[in-house]
């Protein structure tokens, strides 16, 4: 059955370089002397739940999911927690984050694994299991899967489940190898995802430069419960973008501010499906992932790596060539240069790319934008990159937003085709970061204004109450004076003077009492 394919606009065809690492099977990477597990591996941070010096087992939860967009973090092997401290994170900023440093004991002793019967548990319980197993999108964004599996409030059903096996970025082959070698496990993960989403059909999109993976997945698709179709898609970067793949497979273009589920489509990566299967049917949390190590190395390949393994150890296994001058995490299009080679592998790490001047020449100096419009033709999001460039460059952030800068997926197609070699994505990232900061500041200012107004109102109310109390006290004193005067009747004037004096004293006593009351209230 030939599926009808749609086509997103734009895209580029960079050299694939996939043969380098696609040939060899996935090899396990040896246990490093020290594992550094960052507590921030998804959109939200996890809170540590172990202490320094404590012994942990393989798969033991060391960080709890905190907040709606976090997932749990686990010990990748059994060993002793040596430190919980700030270490450099694999992040373009080169900044530090809280990490749990574990010294492995080499025994690889597991915690008691607790597989579940998927059909026996409610969807809510399964999502909790996935959160506590630390399952996040392993395609690179590391968005917690349990959030994506939450169905809409109105009980709407997600008609189509799209499985992303496109892997469009050059050099990376980890999903390719995974599909070739573990197609059955992936298929079972897909079945769980389809069950959770109540999907009516499953579309597995794989770029047509991976015939072995397509064949392997086709074999498993035949036995699936839900209507499953493996769809070879044309090799075109960035087919693996979520919106792009959904567009190609279903023809649905997801507009700005909407998500797949609004249109009955949800998308997961093949590696995520594999992790879901492992988490639920084996009871093993996400403690390792397949990472492509390639680029300027003698032995490129794919390794099953424990999370927290320093990139240095991993790269050493592939024997980097001496002229390697920097290390990229992720592919050449969307990856970033690592601040140092001691940073650990995290859930989002799909590729470690050794770069050299020969493979990735230094960026030539920029030339002026000539408004040729090639970037606009290449943009898969139908933006106008040259306009965004001018607005970002002149710090005109209002205009950037008017031209939908937040639709930009930072795929780098525009910069790839730019004849003036302008690093366009850098400008967009700068503008986005500035806009986000302004939004944060505005939100903080609004909160401060509300608190200031509430405080002002409270002070005014207190002042009014105080004035009321004083007025009441004065009235009581006057009344007392009047009573005294009445009791004295038409008495002598000297008596009247005495009564007034007495009333004044009484009023003063009353005032003091009121003051004491106030002090007590405080």
């Amino acid at each position: 059955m030939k599926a009808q394919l749609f086509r997103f606009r734009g895209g580029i065809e960079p050299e694939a370089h996939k043969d380098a690492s696609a040939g060899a099977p996935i090899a396990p990477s040896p246990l490093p002397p020290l594992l550094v597990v960052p507590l921030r591996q998804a959109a939200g941070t996890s809170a540590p739940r172990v202490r320094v010096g404590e012994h942990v087992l393989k798969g033991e939860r060391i960080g709890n999911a905190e907040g709606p967009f976090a997932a749990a973090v686990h010990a990748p092997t059994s060993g002793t927690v040596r430190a919980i401290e700030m270490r450099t994170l694999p992040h373009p900023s080169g900044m530090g984050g809280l990490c749990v440093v574990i010294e492995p004991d080499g025994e690889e002793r597991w915690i008691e694994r607790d597989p579940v019967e998927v059909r026996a548990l409610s969807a809510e319980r399964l999502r909790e299991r996935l959160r506590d197993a630390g399952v996040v999108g392993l395609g690179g964004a590391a968005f917690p899967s349990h959030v994506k599996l939450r169905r809409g409030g109105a009980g709407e059903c997600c008609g189509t489940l799209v499985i992303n096996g496109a892997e469009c970025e050059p050099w990376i082959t980890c999903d390719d190898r995974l599909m070739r070698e573990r197609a059955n496990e992936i298929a079972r993960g897909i079945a769980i995802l389809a069950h959770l989403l109540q999907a009516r059909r499953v579309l597995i999109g794989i770029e047509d430069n991976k015939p072995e993976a397509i064949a392997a997945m086709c074999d498993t698709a035949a036995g699936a419960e839900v209507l499953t179709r493996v769809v070879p898609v044309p090799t075109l970067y960035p087919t693996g973008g979520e919106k792009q793949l959904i567009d190609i497979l279903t023809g649905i273009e997801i507009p700005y501010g909407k998500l797949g589920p609004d249109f009955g489509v949800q998308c997961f990566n093949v590696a995520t499906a594999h992790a879901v299967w492992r988490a639920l049917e084996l009871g093993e949390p996400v403690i390792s992932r397949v990472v492509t190590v390639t680029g300027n190395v003698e032995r490129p390949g794919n390794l099953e790596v424990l999370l927290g393994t320093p990139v240095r150890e991993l790269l050493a296994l592939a024997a980097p060539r001496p002229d390697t001058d920097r290390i990229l995490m992720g592919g050449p299009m969307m990856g970033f240069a690592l601040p140092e080679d001691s940073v650990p592998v995290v859930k989002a790490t799909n590729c470690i790319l050794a770069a050299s001047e020969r493979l990735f020449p230094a960026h030539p100096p920029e030339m002026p934008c000539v408004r040729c419009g090639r970037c606009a033709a290449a943009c898969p999001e139908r933006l106008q990159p040259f306009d965004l460039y001018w607005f970002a460059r002149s710090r005109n952030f209002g205009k950037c937003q008017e031209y939908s800068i937040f639709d930009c997926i930072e795929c780098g197609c525009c910069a790839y085709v730019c004849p003036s070699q302008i690093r366009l994505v850098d400008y967009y990232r700068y503008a986005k970061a500035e806009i986000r900061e302004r939004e944060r500041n505005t939100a903080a200012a609004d909160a401060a204004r509300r608190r200031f107004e509430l405080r002002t109102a409270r002070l005014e109310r207190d002042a009014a109450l105080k004035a009321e109390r004083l007025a009441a006290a004065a009235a009581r004193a006057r009344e007392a004076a009047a009573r005294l005067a009445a009791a004295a009747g038409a008495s002598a004037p000297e008596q009247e003077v005495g009564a007034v004096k007495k009333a004044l004293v009484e009023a003063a006593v009353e005032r003091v009492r009121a003051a004491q009351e106030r002090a007590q209230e405080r």
Partner: protein
Amino acid sequence: MLTALLVMCGVALVLGAALGYASLRFKVEADPLVEKIDALLPQTQCGQCGYPGCRPYAQAIADGEAAINLCPPGGEEGIRKLADLLGREAQPLDAEHGVEKPRQVAVIDENACIGCVLCIQACPVDAIVGATRQMHTVIASLCTGCELCVPPCPVDCISMRPLPESVETWKWAYPRTGLRRAA
């Protein structure tokens, strides 16, 4: 001629009545200009402008009593935005009222705090918690960095610290690349 005059007068009367009715019917209660100015101010509530808070300063600007360059936390960008909104000339910040600083938060040295509640009374946004003779502390996420709590403290245990940068708040820098020289 007479018909034309009558028609024109009639039209004028009808339209005038309609406008008069609309001005009553759709009367704007508050001055929206004050709201707009207030929205541009940083809401630090520090009083460095000489007014007791951002809202009173916004009122003063709207009334034409105050200049637009009195707000140090808003800085040059704030002045530019106010100038754009009001159609006035942007001026440099009035140094008499202070200088622009990076955002700060107040931090109480909790060992030195004697629990006098003076800082709590001074805080314009209720960002300090504590009670008489109990330790006080600043809720960092609510602190606007106005420094109003610093002078009242009898034991000088409040210090202003710049906001620490983290992975969450880190920003990509402005790309710096030289243009290639024309041959």
